[in-house]
């Protein structure tokens, strides 16, 4: 099952700071049927199916993929909100998946999350002060009781909200302001890692930029590491140092921001990038679009061999027979340059670019 050879992490392992989070062969299958009400077992949804990566101090790893690719399940696994079927999540060398009780709580303090929907992720009956200060109830050692009020006001200030607003309720704020509240809550315990699951996709264009800038500023100020999950490829490029492209539970291509966006070698990445509308009408007829046929197959029964082959224009017999592993493809290994990065495709190569 686990066929990750040269993990995506290893390519970037040479550079960057200390590894905070190491994920190895992470798998999460959700069984179908056979629940408490009976019913036949019908296999499993293979939401995350063998994912490995390393997250270093101060860096941002962007995870892009379309709906159903497993990126949100990945976030939940990292937050210990779900137990993996197998695989390891090492936080500072310690396997989080084996921890429980107090030890798990201590780890969780350092890994926080910012959610997509600022409307449903804040309790409407709690004041902003209570929402942002709630983590202190769970981890009282972080801020002594008498100091909490001050800390909350400080946090609001850090995310660009008026500290006078502590007694207001979420409905009194706009979407962008609510997302700031969510970010303030995520920062409360001085975490090292923040998992951002589509943090700006629910926001208006003019507000998105404010929140993206805020996240970048906080990263610099506090030396945070981000795992930034999103479907908007432009936002991901903007904020990420390294990118992993996910398809049906697996990483299919990983590399630096430049390697992925300017020198993609996996057909799925190429199609994904070519499909993004670019806000420049001058490029309308000059861009070579790859329009994929069909939809993402069901993660319950992914195709044998390469999971992308049903939609791929390069698919050949080999692709049905053997599943390509994520590693630097042999044919690209000899070439120096940005095309040389992990890609899970038998026919990985750079696309001839039309316009430039």
């Amino acid at each position, binding site marked *: 099952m686990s066929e990750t050879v040269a993990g995506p992490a290893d390519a970037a392992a040479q550079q960057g700071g200390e590894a905070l989070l190491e994920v190895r062969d992470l798998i999460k299958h959700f069984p179908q049927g056979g629940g408490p009400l009976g019913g036949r077992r019908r296999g499993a949804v293979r939401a995350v199916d063998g994912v490995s990566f390393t997250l270093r101090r101060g860096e941002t790893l962007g995870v892009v993929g*379309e*709906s159903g690719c497993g990126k949100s399940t990945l976030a939940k696994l990292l937050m210990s909100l779900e137990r993996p079927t197998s695989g390891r999540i090492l936080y500072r060398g310690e396997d989080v998946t084996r921890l429980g009780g107090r030890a798990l709580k201590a780890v969780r303090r350092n890994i926080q999350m910012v959610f997509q929907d600022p409307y449903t992720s804040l309790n409407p009956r709690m004041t902003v002060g209570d929402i942002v200060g709630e983590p202190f109830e769970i981890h009282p050692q972080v801020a002594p009781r008498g100091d909490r009020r001050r800390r909350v006001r400080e946090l609001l200030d850090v995310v660009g909200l008026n500290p006078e607003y502590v007694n207001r309720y979420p409905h009194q704020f*706009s*979407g*962008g*302001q609510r997302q700031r509240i969510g970010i303030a809550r995520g920062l409360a315990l001085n975490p090292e890692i923040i998992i951002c699951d589509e943090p700006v996709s629910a926001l*208006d*264009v*003019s*507000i*998105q*930029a*404010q929140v*993206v*800038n805020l996240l*970048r500023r906080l990263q610099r100020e506090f030396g945070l590491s981000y795992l930034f999950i999103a*479907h908007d*490829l*432009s*936002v991901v*490029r*903007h*904020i990420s140092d390294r990118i992993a492209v996910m398809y049906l539970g697996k990483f299919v291509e990983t590399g630096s*921001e*430049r390697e992925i*966006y300017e020198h993609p070698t996996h057909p799925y990445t190429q*199609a*994904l*990038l*070519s*499909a*993004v*509308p*670019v*806000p*420049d*009408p*001058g*490029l*309308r007829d000059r861009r070579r*679009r790859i*329009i*994929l046929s*069909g*939809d*993402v197959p069901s993660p319950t029964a992914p195709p044998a061999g390469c999971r992308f082959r049903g939609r791929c224009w390069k698919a050949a017999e080999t692709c049905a027979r053997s599943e390509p592993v994520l590693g630097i493809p042999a044919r690209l290994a000899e070439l120096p340059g940005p095309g040389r990065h992990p890609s899970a495709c038998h026919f990985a190569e750079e696309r001839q670019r039309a316009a430039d």
Partner: protein
Amino acid sequence: MLLEVRDLRVEFHTRDGVVRAVDGVSYAVDAGETLAVLGESGSGKSVAAQAVMGILECPPARVTGGRVLFQGRDLLTLGREERRRVRGERMAMIFQDALSALNPVLSVGYQLGELFRVHRGMSRREARAKAVELMDRVRIPAAKERVNDYPHQFSGGMRQRIMIAMALALEPDVIIADEPTTALDVTVQAQVMDLLAELQRDFHMGLILITHDLGVVADVADKIAVMYAGRIVENAPVHELYKRPAHPYTRGLLDSIPRLDHKGGELRAIRGLPPNLLRVPAGCPFHPRCPLAREDCRTGAHPPLFEVASRRASACHHWRETVSE
């Protein structure tokens, strides 16, 4: 002109006061032309479209002024039945969320066929055959086998195709598409926009595309109307708008989006928040967020649309400065 909206006004009466969701909006679209109405949430772009279609819920909404001229006839003065006939036959709408726009307990074949039974008086069998034909037209694989399936059995992209098929069924002259691809993944979005553009060409329809997505607009629109706080703040052909925006809000939007083709530094965000429509600022509604705002922007009536060039207008006192920036 195929469809022309003139000085349209829509109000909502709420507990807290009157909201002018659409405050004097004019736009027009010709056969074979694509007009994009660009705006953020609360700009009034969808409410205006619903008023044009005649599907606004009144109350709470009230159309308080303006005209919607379709082939020269003012739709707002038509009776209920007459309006309905125009809406079914000549104008159609595509919504963002196909899952909630389609009836979950009826097969897609039934829902497609219904149009032909009601509007064309076809028999069930004929209508079913038409439904299969339409599903083929929007490239739903194995249409014949899937015609009896229910909406939930289709993927999001396929459901959106079915909605497009429904909109096309009676070969309307105008289609209004309200965020048709916002809920879709990018590879599927590309498929659906391609399909929509192709069908528009083939049927020579007028298309009004309501969206917040500057990328999608750049790909398909002929001309653009930018809305802010219930008003149109800029009108322009697509190339001019992207090259030389004439309103600071448009410029702000273009500057604030991250680009796919290069990694930038700090994004140039528009400061502040869109206005609360219960308390729209005096003067230019954008002035609290505008880098160019002066005294004349802060007081008096909102700026009218100034003619910038032929087919171009901007509701900014300082459009000259904005364009030349």
